[in-house]
């Protein structure tokens, strides 16, 4: 189990990134809180160690994406959502005035991940392939398809 000092440090260091990945996947702030806490709980209970800061960051990215995917899978099995959550989600979606963000959130999940990691976190395709445990060619394909969709929606110089 990780020490309190370690936990405080990683919360300070990766909280914004974890929150952004949650946002990219879940949009809903109510779900974000649960997934956010789950990610840090996994860290608290993680028995392994990290070779470097980059290794640690990549671990957080992978764990957060997996936690979001699990959460969405669980959500898809839920027959009904509480009304306040639906209202909240609708308010959040209505509040987007940013075309780029809105277009990224409309992308299929796999393209969303690579676009976020490539443009926001500035990872290379090779690094993204390692983080997501996919083949480099797959990442190149997803990246180019994601970019193409965004280019069609936002015009040539969107990024």
């Amino acid at each position: 189990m990780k020490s309190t000092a370690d936990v405080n440090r990683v919360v300070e260091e990766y909280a914004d990134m974890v929150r952004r990945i949650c946002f990219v996947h879940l949009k809903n702030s109510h779900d974000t809180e649960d997934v956010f806490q789950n990610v840090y709980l996994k860290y608290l209970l993680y028995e392994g160690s990290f070779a470097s800061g980059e290794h640690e960051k990549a671990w957080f990215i992978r764990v957060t994406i997996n936690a979001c995917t699990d959460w969405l899978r669980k959500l898809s099995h839920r027959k009904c959502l509480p009304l306040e959550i639906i209202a909240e989600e609708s308010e959040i979606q209505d509040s987007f005035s940013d075309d780029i963000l809105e277009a990224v959130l409309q992308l299929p999940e796999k393209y969303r991940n690579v676009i976020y990691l490539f443009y926001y976190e500035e990872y290379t395709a090779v690094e993204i392939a390692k983080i997501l445990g996919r083949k480099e060619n797959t990442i190149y394909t997803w990246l180019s398809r994601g970019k193409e969709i965004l280019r069609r929606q936002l015009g040539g110089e969107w990024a």
Partner: protein
Amino acid sequence: MNKLQKSMNSIKASNELKAGTLRYLEERREAKRDGERTGNKTGNRMGHRMYAPRFALALACLLLLIGTGGYTFYGRPVTYVSIDVNPSIELGINRLGRVVSANAYNEDGQKILEQVELKNLPYPKAVGLLLDFETAENYLSENSLLVFTVVSENAEAVTQKLAGISSPRSAAVLTYVSDKECMEEAHQHAMSFGKYRAYQELSEYDGSVTVEDCHGMTMGELQNRIEGCRRHGGNGSQTQSGDGNSGHHGGHGGHHRGGF
């Protein structure tokens, strides 16, 4: 800074979210410590709580499957034995050789089944019990004819086993093998398939005989009619030579006295 970075820079974890998470993690840390102190693994288990309902559901499904499969295996008869004297009783026997159904096809049979519990007994024991009761109630005597008719994939072994069951009185005994089609036809006429087989045999010699006529006859009376027809070559409506063992009513018969 690219446009996506500009768009997303405003998305940050609030101080409230961070503080709430730190509180939550401390609670979990405490719970885990308490669990370790008291020797149970509560802390670890809590981490897996989200999987517990899925596991429980899978376990429940498995148990249901085993339960249903077990019930189907145990409760489904694979062998049927029709025991006819005048009481006509059919036993359904499962793969384990236990009686899982007992049905009477006339009033005498009904009276017996109201007094004798045969279900779940190994079938040789159930048949022995039934014969004892029929003897005690004078359904079965030296002058009676007891007919076992078997429908089974393993009819020969069942027939042999039935031949090894002893009865207090030495009644004449016949054993036949029949089939499911014959059994279904018999049940449409509310008759045991043992007696129905005998009716079919008789009807080959005597075209005027009806199922209703046979309902009121004992197996001894039916057999006497069959043997009478055989001796006299039938009444002109005979359709087949009287070995009594071919076709629908068929299977093979065995006749012996006193071995039961």
